[in-house]
């Protein structure tokens, strides 16, 4: 299906956490095609600085209302520009880009950390009514507004925080073996910090559960044209995170 570039009207751009906003765009052509794991490539300002687009995962898509959403953390100049926009504005947006998650098996475990939970939101919706559980981690309770958002999408929500203010104290990886033991999962989908995903893949291997990971790389074009985002595939080939990914089967890109 063709990728496209559209001028999308902003439906809303609202704060949903500390420094985290949800951007809802009216982009029916993109909403009609989007699958979980794909991303948007957004021109945050009509300027030469910031110059490049910003890749942001699709956190939901609604074919009926024609909207796509993304949840982003304000970290630098580009996301600050985006945060300043309001529902009077529109943004130049490419999408849906990349390959999404491959729906596989019956019982799914989602493992996410930080903004990696955004694409998992979309995925959780799409997996319904299959049984799913989610294991999510963050630094502190304040960051875990996510729990509410996954509430009616998952059969169980397992939470860890670094400081123990919500769920168990520690990181997702600490809790992962326990979660895996309690449920008979036949697939794991993970998105979050690289080290977390690597840990998840390692543990999943010992349990013999296939695992899909969603990678993040610095991107210029977002469509396979610049090679800024490539990584080494385990088969010796080069993989473009933007078009071969961002979602890969773990064994394609991690050992």
């Amino acid at each position, binding site marked *: 299906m063709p990728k496209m570039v559209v001028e999308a009207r902003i439906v809303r751009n609202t704060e949903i956490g500390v420094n985290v906003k949800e951007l809802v765009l009216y982009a029916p052509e993109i909403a009609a095609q989007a699958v979980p794991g794909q991303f948007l490539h957004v021109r945050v300002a009509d300027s030469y600085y910031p110059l490049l687009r910003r890749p942001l995962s699709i956190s939901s898509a609604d074919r009926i209302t024609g909207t796509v959403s993304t949840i982003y953390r304000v970290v630098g100049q580009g996301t600050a520009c985006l945060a300043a926009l309001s529902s009077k504005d529109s943004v130049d947006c490419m999408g849906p880009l990349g390959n999404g998650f491959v729906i596989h098996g019956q019982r799914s475990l989602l493992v996410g950390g930080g903004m990696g939970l955004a694409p998992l939101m979309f995925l959780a919706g799409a997996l319904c009514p299959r049984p799913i559980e989610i294991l999510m981690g963050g630094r502190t309770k304040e960051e875990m507004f996510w729990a509410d958002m996954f509430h009616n999408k998952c059969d169980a929500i397992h939470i860890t925080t670094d400081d123990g203010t919500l769920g168990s104290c520690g990181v997702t990886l600490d809790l992962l073996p326990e979660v895996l033991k309690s449920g008979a999962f036949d697939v794991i989908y993970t998105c979050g910090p690289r080290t977390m995903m690597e840990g998840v893949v390692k543990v999943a291997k010992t349990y013999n559960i296939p695992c899909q990971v969603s990678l993040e790389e610095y991107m210029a074009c977002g469509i396979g044209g610049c*090679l800024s985002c490539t990584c080494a595939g385990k088969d010796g080939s080069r993989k473009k995170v933007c078009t071969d990914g961002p979602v890969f089967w773990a064994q394609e890109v991690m050992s």
Partner: protein
Amino acid sequence: MSIGDSDMLGVTIAGIKMKTPVMTASGTFGFGLEYKDFVNLNKIGAVVVKGTTLLPRSGNQGRRIAETPAGMLNSIGLENPGVDEFLSTILPRLKDYDVPVIVNISGNTVEEYGELAARLNVADVAGVELNISCPNVKEGGIAFGTNCDSASAVVKQVKSNTDLPVIVKLSPNVTDIVAMAQSVEDAGADAISLINTLLGMSIDIHKWRPVLGNVVGGLSGPAVKPIAVRMVWQVARAVKVPVIGMGGIVTAEDAIEFMLAGASAVAVGTANFINPCAVQSVADGMKDYIKQRSLSHVNELVGKVNL
């Protein structure tokens, strides 16, 4: 495309017939196919593909791009599948489109350039573009493109190995761009393209580390346009072969500036990342300009800056 359009924009550069003077800059448009959802490849001037080498290359480690004021740094490190894969897998897919395919090539030695040119001397390739910004491993790693003699040697070797038009792409990281241009012209270049990227660096002041894995990278985008226009102007006055101008072109106005400076065609690079339809919208804008000024052909702009 109506007859009028191609009448207005069609150009022939070093024997390569193009429907518009707007080409793609190597490394910014993949092998063309990546852009097919956004650009009608049958309507653009030429596709200049990613820098190709004899053997496949995996490119540089670590972060490869950084944003800078009105520009970007890149240090892709010439990642590419190698010339054989290009010929066997990619070129056949490009045949579906009615657009000249120009292959940008890079070598570590004069011989490698020659070998690449020989392998690419096939019907479906419209021309080769020599990226001479590469380090000359036999001469201590100094880039071919910063020394008149090495540049000249590369061009001669390539010319004797191919029947195709040879475009030589100059590096702007030199004291005397005119001397470089004249040497490659004397060595037989059929056209000259410029500019390649300017060597730059960014440092992360939080981590106290270079932003790019490769430490330094090539600066491109609107920031470099004034330097590129100046070099195109200097070179176009000094050589007889056609000049292909690039460096920071985002809009039709930018492209027209290069044509007035003396470029016979232009290439769009970094702008493809900002607007995936850029190659086409630049050409469309040039057409509008020509009509507004009641000109009959884009050629009428070439070198017309009045001092």
